[in-house]
């Protein structure tokens, strides 16, 4: 039982890691980024390339990929999202616009990956050694992802809730119009949050590349899983994303072990639906009101 729980938690660590970037992008920059999973897969390919071609191990690879991802997010926000945000001040259509625009972005990134990496399944193994944790045999790479998720989650959560700077980030999520009144540069802050989210997506991608097979068409799977977790945890709430991710991991593992592996995904969605019916704004979401 303990072993099952640990396996589940470790699996959940991956989910949480993937979801946290999206909760930043959507919760704070208000961009519903459908291309999120594609960015993640791109980072996975990058890690693979660095590892297989240049022999740079993925952990060191993070040192290259994360800044690149941040820069990419920063540019994308500036070029694509900012005009939409500006425009939506009048029309209030940011949600729809960002869905449509990032849907396009999704295709572009996917297309670029198809052209450069092909459509094949890619995988390599790194740190694929068993580590005994309280009787459960856990792969070192997954454990690393779990640790990274917890560290990033806890750090960001503390920063966002305990510092003025973090509060300014949350402020733009709460009331965009009032933010300039207290000297917040909305554009810069939203852009930063978006870029940070992109970076988290990339970190998830690098971690996942170490133990999961991926191909250029798989991004949407991650986007949707991340969205489910983000919504379940409560929009824009990092702690919520972390806990919801871990919870999903545990539930999936328990169901796979004690019920029927055929029902794991069904259980995921069931849990998700039940949580939403019980708390319409997610586990840690603010009640009602938009």
């Amino acid at each position, binding site marked *: 039982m303990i072993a099952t729980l640990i396996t589940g938690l470790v699996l959940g660590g991956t989910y949480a890691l993937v979801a946290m970037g999206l909760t930043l992008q959507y919760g704070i920059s208000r961009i519903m980024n459908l291309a999120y999973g594609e960015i993640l897969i791109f980072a996975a390919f990058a890690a693979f390339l660095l590892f297989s071609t240049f022999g740079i191990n993925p952990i060191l690879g993070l040192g290259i990929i994360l800044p690149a991802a941040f820069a990419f997010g920063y540019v994308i926000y500036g070029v694509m999202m900012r005009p939409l945000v500006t425009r939506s001040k009048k029309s209030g259509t940011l949600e729809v616009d960002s869905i449509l625009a990032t849907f396009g972005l999704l295709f572009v990134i996917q297309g670029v990956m*198809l052209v450069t990496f092909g*459509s094949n*399944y890619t*995988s390599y193994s790194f740190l694929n050694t068993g580590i005994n944790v309280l009787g459960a*045999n856990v792969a070192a790479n997954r454990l690393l992802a779990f640790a990274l998720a917890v560290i990033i989650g806890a750090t960001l959560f503390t920063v966002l809730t305990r510092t003025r700077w973090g509060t300014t980030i949350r402020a733009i999520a709460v009331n965009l119009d009032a933010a300039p009144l207290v000297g917040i540069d909305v554009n810069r802050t939203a852009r930063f949050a978006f870029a940070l989210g992109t970076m988290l997506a990339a970190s998830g991608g690098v971690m996942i590349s170490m133990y999961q097979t991926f*191909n250029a*068409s798989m991004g949407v799977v991650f986007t949707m899983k991340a969205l489910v977790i983000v919504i379940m945890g409560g929009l824009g709430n990092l702690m919520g994303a972390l806990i919801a991710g871990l919870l999903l991991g545990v539930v999936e593992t328990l169901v796979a072990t004690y019920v*029927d592996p*055929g029902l794991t995904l069904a259980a995921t969605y069931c849990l998700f639906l039940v949580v939403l019916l019980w708390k319409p704004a997610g586990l840690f979401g603010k009640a009602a009101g938009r």
Partner: protein
Amino acid sequence: AVSAQDRTSVKIGYAISKTGANAGGAGITTLPNYQLWVHEVNEAGGLELPDGTRLPIEVIEYDDRSASEEVVRAVERLATQDQVDFILPPWGTGFNLAVAPLFDRFGYPQLAVSAVTDKAPEFVQRWKKSFWLLGGGHDYTEALAQILNDQKAAGTINNDVAVISVADGFGIDLITAARQSFADAGINIAYDVTYPVGTTDFTPMLSEAAASGADTFVAFSYPPDTFALTQQAQVAQYNPKVLYMGVGVGFPVYQANNGDKIEGVMSLGGIDPTNEAVMDYRARHTEFIGQAPDWWGSVVTYNSLQMLQEAIKRRGLDREAVSEELSNGTFETVLGEVKLEDNQLRTLWFGGQWQDGVFVAVAPADREGAVAPRLPKAPWPAQ
């Protein structure tokens, strides 16, 4: 229609999943072979017709985006809009079935390769011009049951197997067949579960399988699952004496990632490494595509194209005649001498095993070129 004299090319079309969920499989087993074959034929001056003239192949290709509505419409387009001479089939059991009525209606022979179905005899009745080249689930599971029984008799393994299968056409077909085959062979299934497509964490299933006490572990799995299972079995130090997994074991990337560790892993398909034609094909494929073909379906796909090429050479561009030729003729291909039985290819390798870096055929054991399986599989190297 157009007579051979007025032509400058033979139009061959296909719709394939270049994007979407099926792109991973299609990009290994099907598309590279289409490309290789077209390239080789055109290098040689084109397709040869009965009168000895050669016409280059003009390719029309569509992406079905892994959606069955798309593949249906693309085939319609190929047949009625582009009026191609021949249509090559898409990848996947479901898609081959989806387009079968269209091939039939428009009179195109359908050389379905990446489709494993026990219903092939029925389909041949329904669609006279359909050809099914990769066998049915029973063929593979009976071969597996045979191997297991032999090993049991030799005292290598116990009578229990643990089986997991992916909840998709392929997995279901095979597990259904396997239950039957194992029961017939008197083998006990100690653990039997089905998991959804997209599962990434197999740890719970592996530990349950280990706990079941079975010496044999069978997974009717898709490529991502196969890769994950291999890695996670190593982490969990799960060492069944027979380890048999589904699609993906024969993919080049599998070998690249796992190196020597894959020694002893079994799967569907296989190659007779002494068959020079096959090995030569593999070399050409690797050279042209930049990566090796897989060890199961690829060579059969290539074989199907050679059959088509030969049938055209014998009967010209008349699709009716070509179909008839495919049904009745005997062909010399990479697989050696090939003759279809009731529009189905029966001379297939139904089981293979990684031995010294080559995925050799082990079943049917009585066919020439088969190698004896090396069992039990050695435990994973210590970490």
